[in-house]
């Protein structure tokens, strides 16, 4: 199995080739990153079909912007930023779909750390409630929680990606967490 360093070098090479217009190299980058792009999109917009559209547009935007990518951040971080911007644009256009699909419930069954049926059951239950609580947040609040509490972005990174002030990002997070705690309490 290749080490992370080898993987990074391989990715650097693929990026350089894709920047030169090599579409096969870009296809390899798409294959390597499409799941994480789709996962973030899904968390930000909720609806799986809309998330697929967001992921598609994100990767197309990435291809067009790739000549300007200078490698100052990891490719995945750069793709995350494009995903957030794209999701934001899509959300302005589309009405949010709030249903929780069977697939979504199904992927809860494979949780890391769920060693016993009791623990697994408790985690599934909490994770399910958490997802519903997240889904009930207004878009702007949910996106801040996802970026801060799931992906560990800083307030300034969130502010820059969402085109808001750092103070606005902090206020949204503050309100979102308060709402989350109340929703979890109500659903317990």
């Amino acid at each position, binding site marked *: 199995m290749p080490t992370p360093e080898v993987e990074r070098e391989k990715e650097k090479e693929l990026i350089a080739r894709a920047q030169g217009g090599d579409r096969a190299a870009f296809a390899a980058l798409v294959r390597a990153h*499409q*799941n994480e792009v*789709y996962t973030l999109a899904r968390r930000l917009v909720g609806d799986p079909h809309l998330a697929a559209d967001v992921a598609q547009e994100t990767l197309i935007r990435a291809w067009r912007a790739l000549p300007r990518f200078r490698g100052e951040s990891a490719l995945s971080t750069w793709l995350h930023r494009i995903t957030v911007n794209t999701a934001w644009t899509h959300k302005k256009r589309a009405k949010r779909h709030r249903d929780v699909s069977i697939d979504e419930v199904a*992927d809860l069954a494979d949780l890391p750390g769920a060693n016993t049926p009791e623990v697994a059951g408790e985690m599934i239950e*909490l994770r399910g409630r958490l997802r519903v609580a997240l889904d009930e947040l207004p878009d702007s609040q949910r996106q801040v929680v996802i970026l801060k509490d799931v992906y560990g972005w800083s307030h300034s990174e969130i502010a820059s990606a969402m085109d808001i002030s750092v103070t606005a990002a902090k206020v949204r997070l503050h309100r979102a967490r308060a709402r989350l*705690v109340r929703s979890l309490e109500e659903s317990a």
Partner: protein
Amino acid sequence: MSVTCELAAPFVATSAVDGKPVVRAFRSHTESCLKCQARHAAMAKAARELSAMAGESQDAPRDLEWRVMSSLDGDLAVARSIRKPVALVAAGLSMAAALIIWRLRPRPQS
């Protein structure tokens, strides 16, 4: 539930997620309020779940790569479809310019 619990809720949540003490203004209340302590514990658990989500990934739709790459083909097709008319217009303009120069050339006076 008291008004103070509601006012303290965002600070309790933030304290639980960030692993820091509740802000001083609400600390004496939260230290003695079972409701707020329960909220703190629930939110701390939720925060752990949230950060665990970062390591999980969902499978993208199987046709995503195809959709992306065929859109790029569309980009190239547009570029190609623009290239031909542009070349024709450029050729036409060159011919027109050559014709004008030829018509306006100084002629020897007889």
